């Protein structure tokens, strides 16, 4: 009884600093994080016929539609890469991003019931969403690699691409993707906690953002003088970078990458601060 009293000391008071953040508590609740990831993933396909296969079907259907629509009918070039590979590769990072943003964008209002009954670090549920979306990402990566192998073995002529050491950079890009998605998701959570009608915004935001990102077209199609605009969109550089790593095509500049990293980190930091600020007294307004 003496030792815990010495170990734990919790101070509750009106928080004076916007930047105060309890990292230790986050670590203390790591088991909850893992369990929430599991819960979210199993709950998603509990009572579905195909279960986790849906994570494969969705991007595949998209890739086929994109191939027919943009490649065959409209004729947007794919930098010499087989269209299906191009679209699968382009969707990898984008789908992860849109899953993270979509599932974290309503973290406060969506968890109001549980947040008003028990305390745990409010960042845990959105972090868990990043984790459970990662499982979907990995499944999609495997599908992509299967197609990639097929093209490598059966159509060596079309395979001007190779997997190199740069593959080691992929996890870093995934982390950056999670950072941007989570950052924007947390900002949206803070806003929708107060203005519930803005939840509608998330869908449109994602749709417009996708067209502003080289998912279905190569960045090289953007005129040179507008290219700098895409530097402001961290997802543009991430998607382009993934394509470069996996398909060997893509335009990536060092400066662009640096700006994109800075913007990603800034978005995440701003999101965390805003979210934490809102979470502290959020239950009073439910």
């Amino acid at each position, binding site marked *: *009884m003496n030792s*815990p*009293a010495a170990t*734990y*000391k*919790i*101070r*509750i*008071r*009106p*928080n004076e600093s916007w930047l105060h953040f309890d990292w230790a508590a986050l670590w*203390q*609740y790591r*088991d*909850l994080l*893992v*369990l*929430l990831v*599991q*819960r979210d993933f*199993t*709950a998603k396909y*509990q*009572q579905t016929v195909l279960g986790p296969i849906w994570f494969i079907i969705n991007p595949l259907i998209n890739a086929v539609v994109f191939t027919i629509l943009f490649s065959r009918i409209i004729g947007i070039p794919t930098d010499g890469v087989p269209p299906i590979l191009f679209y699968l590769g382009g969707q990898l990072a984008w789908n992860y991003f849109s899953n993270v943003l979509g599932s974290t964008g309503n973290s406060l*209002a969506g968890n109001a019931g*549980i*947040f*008003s*009954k*028990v*305390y*745990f670090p409010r960042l845990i549920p959105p972090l868990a969403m990043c984790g459970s979306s990662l499982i979907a990402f990995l499944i999609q990566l495997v599908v992509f690699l299967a197609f990639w192998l097929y093209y490598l073995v059966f159509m060596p002529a079309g395979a001007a691409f190779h997997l190199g050491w740069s593959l080691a950079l992929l996890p870093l890009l995934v982390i950056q993707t999670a950072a941007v998605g989570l950052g924007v998701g947390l900002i949206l959570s803070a806003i929708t*906690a*107060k*203005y*519930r*009608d*803005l939840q509608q915004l998330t869908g449109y935001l994602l749709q417009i953002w996708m067209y502003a990102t080289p998912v279905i077209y190569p960045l090289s199609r953007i005129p040179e003088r507008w290219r700098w605009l895409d530097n402001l969109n961290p997802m543009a550089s991430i998607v382009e970078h993934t394509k470069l790593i996996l398909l060997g095509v893509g335009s990536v500049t060092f400066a662009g990458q640096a700006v994109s990293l800075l913007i990603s980190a800034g978005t995440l930091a701003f999101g965390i601060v805003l979210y934490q600020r809102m979470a*502290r*007294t959020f*239950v*009073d*307004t*439910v």
Partner: protein
Amino acid sequence: MSQPIITARGVSKRYQLGQIGMTSFRDELERLTGRFRRGRKIPSAPAGEFWALKDVAFDIMPGEIVGIIGRNGAGKSTLLKILSRITEPTTGEITLHGRVGSLLEVGTGFHPDLSGRQNIFLNGAILGMSRAEVSAKFDEIVAFAEIDQFIDTPVKRYSSGMYVRLAFAIAAHLEPEILIIDEVLAVGDAAFQRKCLGKMESVSRLDGRTVLFVSHNMAAVSQLTNRAVVLKAGQVQFAGPTSQAIDRYVEEFETHLVQSYATGPMPRKWPGTGHARIEQLSFLKATPIFESNADIEFDLELSVSRPIEKLRISMTVFAADGSAVGGSFGIDVDCAGAANDRINWRVRLPRPTLAPGRYHLDLAAGQGDFTGDRQEYDVVTDVLYFEVLPPKSSGGHLARWESGWGHLILPSLQCEPI
């Protein structure tokens, strides 16, 4: 032991009236644009604030079991929410020297699609237990909840009783230094409630944990706690030994019990013949709180609109939860009541031996009773609220009557050797 485990100083919580509830962005825009458009004034949210807690201060020592009592709206829930870190105070500071486990609801975060086993781990983690801690207690929790066969069944297929038992079992095995329990014990069956109370008591006695217990059930508070804090309108009215605290609380309750009822203008649920009308009811006591072995007495005034020959009064006693406890019929009394007469009677229900709790009456004036022809002139419902105190034990403290034992204390059993 000299250092308090919980210290609260100057804790206040302000709620902004009119801002409770989420606004929509449109409302806000309208309010903004309204400011610029001349001639049109859109009223902003009604200004005003409400202090749910005001300058609350107390110390709690390690190992104490402390009750927090007060009427609805006294600030108990707000205080619990601040202590559990669900929301933060507007001013003031609380220091806690230990981990806090709070139980404001059972089964928070249960996922219907997951099995009992998965939910034990998930709920345990939500309540602050590590996976290792839950694993170590897993068998104990399952045994306590009495659900071993169904441990791998999704909880959505559980009966509500099993669901609550499982949720309780997890909570009862929490091992933080400070345990905060809201009125969650109100659910579940009586036998299981007793089991949980026993478990919590032993947790505190054996392991020296600190427990904060909020309840309306004075009997449970007096059984479990040795010290209590009485909250009134957001302020600490009293902090000290539980028996004194309960006295203060009961005094407080008294001022809210009404001594007399003008029943004339009250709406009627049951139509009467209209020969007479119950106009006024009033307890003889200034405060309708009765000892468990006392008579319930009140005065009644009746206005007669058509001549009646006989009059009798009957009543049904209802418990606070709305269930009927029992009924009683008086006998017909000859009374040549002429029109426009007023009749005043004193009514006494001799020693109903009601269990401790709150009751109210439905009252009827008529003639005849349940054994024969019966006629009601007038019936009034939901009147004459009163409270019955727990019997005092020989030691002078309040006895405990379990809610599962019913609303009546029946006559003492008579047993003799044969």
